């Protein structure tokens, strides 16, 4: 029982960075932009997030505030990077896959370079700590599972219904879905397609930055230039797993993270078995589950990856 509770209670926080980044990528893709640069935006977020408490936050009276300033800065710069990406792929219509790889290199490289220059080696910050919810966290089992996490964990899971609401219940969500599926139709009815795409990119970038900052401020409270280690690509993949739906994306992120917690727990049991095959488990499981899950109606953004311009017919 504790074995299972451990796996579940660890899997939940493990999923958070992926969840936040995937939700951001979902907004990008829903608007028709395939952002493979998520990794780079996460790296920048991770660096900037910890930079604030590390520099001005040190020795301050209320150091906690600087953590949240860090999160804010990370999202803000993430949004700017999203807009910059928009300049390349929306305004200049560059192919999104290749531009995304460029963005990834740019983000990871810049974060690493600035980090080396301004901070030096791997450094830690006090970061944001676990905040058990008073009372609730004392409930046996359930308390450990759901009420004893980092505040950002609750925030991240709150993002799921919020993202759902925004996407399906607000005018902006409607516009995002429209420009990602049939931009010409949206344009013909007076929606400024490229503006909406820029907005979605800003939101996606902000969430990617936040996801990075979650890693550096909440999960490990450290930064090194390899902190993201491919999690941005996994976040992109999870959007496909979740068929562009916030709830299914959450399911994907949880599946992946729980599998990760599970394989670590199994490694801990000390069974004589090459550990490599356990490390593979989360990656393989995501593929297998998707392969055998029921195929849903094609609800995806059919204009994904296609730049829009009124006059240019493609």
């Amino acid at each position, binding site marked *: 029982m504790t074995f299972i509770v451990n796996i579940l209670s660890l899997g939940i926080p493990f999923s958070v960075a992926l969840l936040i980044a995937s939700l951001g990528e979902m907004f990008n893709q829903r608007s028709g932009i395939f952002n493979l640069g998520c990794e780079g935006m996460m790296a920048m977020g991770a660096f900037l997030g910890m930079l604030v408490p590390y520099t001005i936050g040190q020795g301050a009276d209320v150091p906690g505030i600087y953590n949240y300033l860090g999160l804010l800065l990370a999202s803000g710069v993430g949004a700017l990077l999203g807009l910059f990406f928009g300049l390349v792929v929306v305004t200049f219509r560059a192919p999104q896959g290749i531009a995304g790889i460029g963005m990834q290199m740019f983000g990871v490289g810049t974060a690493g370079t600035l980090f080396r220059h301004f901070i030096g080696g791997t450094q830690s910050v006090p970061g944001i700590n676990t905040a058990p919810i008073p009372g609730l966290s004392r409930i046996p089992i359930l308390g450990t599972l759901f009420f004893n996490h980092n505040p950002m964990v609750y925030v991240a899971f709150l993002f799921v219904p919020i993202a759902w609401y925004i996407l399906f*219940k*607000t*005018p902006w969500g409607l516009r995002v879905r429209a420009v990602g599926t049939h931009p010409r139709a949206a344009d013909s009815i007076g929606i400024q397609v490229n503006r909406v795409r820029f907005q979605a990119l800003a939101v996606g970038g902000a969430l990617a930055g936040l996801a990075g900052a979650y890693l550096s401020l909440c999960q490990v409270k450290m930064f090194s230039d390899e902190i993201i280690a491919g999690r941005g690509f996994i976040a992109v993949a999870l959007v496909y797993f979740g068929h562009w739906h916030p709830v299914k994306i959450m399911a994907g992120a949880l599946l992946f993270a729980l599998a990760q917690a599970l394989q670590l727990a199994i490694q801990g049991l000390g069974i004589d078995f090459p550990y490599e095959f356990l490390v593979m488990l989360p990656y393989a499981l995501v593929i297998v589950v998707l392969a055998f899950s029921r195929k849903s109606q094609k609800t995806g953004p059919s204009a994904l990856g296609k730049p829009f311009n009124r006059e240019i017919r493609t």
Partner: protein
Amino acid sequence: MELTTKAIDSLRIEHITKRFPGVLACDDISLDIGKGEVLALVGENGAGKTTLMNVLMGLYHPDEGKILINGEEVNFRSPNDAFAYGIGMVHQQYMLVPNMTVLENIALGFKQAWKPWKLDLHMVRDRIDAVARQYGLAVDPDAFIWQLSVGEQQRVELVKTLCLGARFLILDEPTSALTPQETDDLIALLKRMSGELSIIFISHKLQEVKDLSSKVAILRHGRVVFQGNTIDHSSSDIAALMTGHEVVLPHNDAPACTMGPMLQLRNLKVRSDRGFLALDDLSLYICKGEIVGLAGVSGNGQRELAEAINGLRKVESGQILFDGQDIANRSPVQVIQAGMGYIPEERNTEGIVPSFSMKENFILKDTDSEKYSSHSFLKNKVVDVEAEQLRQQFDIRSPNIEVAAGSLSGGNIQKVILAREISRSPKFLIAVYPTRGLDMGAAEFIHKQLLQKRNEGVGILLISEELEEITNLSDQVAVIFKGKIQKVLPSSEASRRRLGILMAGVKDDEEI
């Protein structure tokens, strides 16, 4: 809800010129429309009609010229500006997001319902109700667009435009995909509306132009070549002005065929994408050298029928005997090799590979034939020679055989498909809506080609919504309704009225 826009008493287009790279789409066009007038805009494919209307909607910015409303110059930068003046347009290609509901599609443009954190769908629903009541246009707000037939989508487009407060309607080929019944209804509706609205109406069907419009303007190569009152000119006058020559649509007056059956469909059951039985125990046969026209309201199984025969859709039960062989559930390539030719409904996305050159599209079905390849290597010289020949023979207007097929106009794309399907010497041909959206010249050409094939002994299943096309070309007319053949009758007995009744689902029309 009240319209927020002012009335448009006059709209003038002055010296509009619009260039695309390498194309002069609109060349110094001037037109004007007064209150309550219906202007019909006609012209061959590519004449510049749609471009001009897009300029009027603020979608394109003209290179030269201006637009005046009520005598004042306006400068539209986006469709929003046009909406603000009460101009609305139903586009040639429907502008509806398929995976959203009717309600959402309309809400997309209905900015009054955009509360900061909430989309006020009730307000949109009320608005739809009001419009539906006022004009008698019933739509289901909660249906997804992909669930709707073409005719229903057309209605949604109209409702959408009206909901946004349009008092000046632009309709770009609104009837090209409608059934006769739907067309008649639409024309009647527009006639009623023209009392309070001004309308620009684009169509290739001159009968509609005659029925509806008060003025007519003809475009050719981006220029206005004729303007006048509709009453003063007959359809054939207009056709001649449009194409520069007399247009005579050919008739099938050859004697009925005597050769044996070529394609026999027996008790076919086939499911649609949405899972219901689109073909329900359908039986039909077509002889060699015979054209059977399949009339019916679209969405009654025509698409599924064509796809099932061609191996593109699973047959649940029943037989498809082709030259005596059952080809049900064979793969597309097997059906092709058995000698089937197929002109599909979706010419742009299914009939051609748009990014491939014209010549590459000619060999789409024959890359393995000895004619075009040896040891898997393509014989490019042979392909070039053949392609050039086809281009000339089928009068395909393009600079050369290397241009991407997708960049051709609709009419020319259809000719590419026709050229490929006919030159493969099929034993049988299935043609689905072969002239939809084409101008009269192109339609005439395609009709001639179909008749010629028939006279060479090829059996043809012609699926169409245009009764004139069907009655002109067919030996026999079959009427399809809800996946079943209602009746098969000789073309000479297929009056418009009789077909209309059968298409509406009445089984025994003789009693009426």
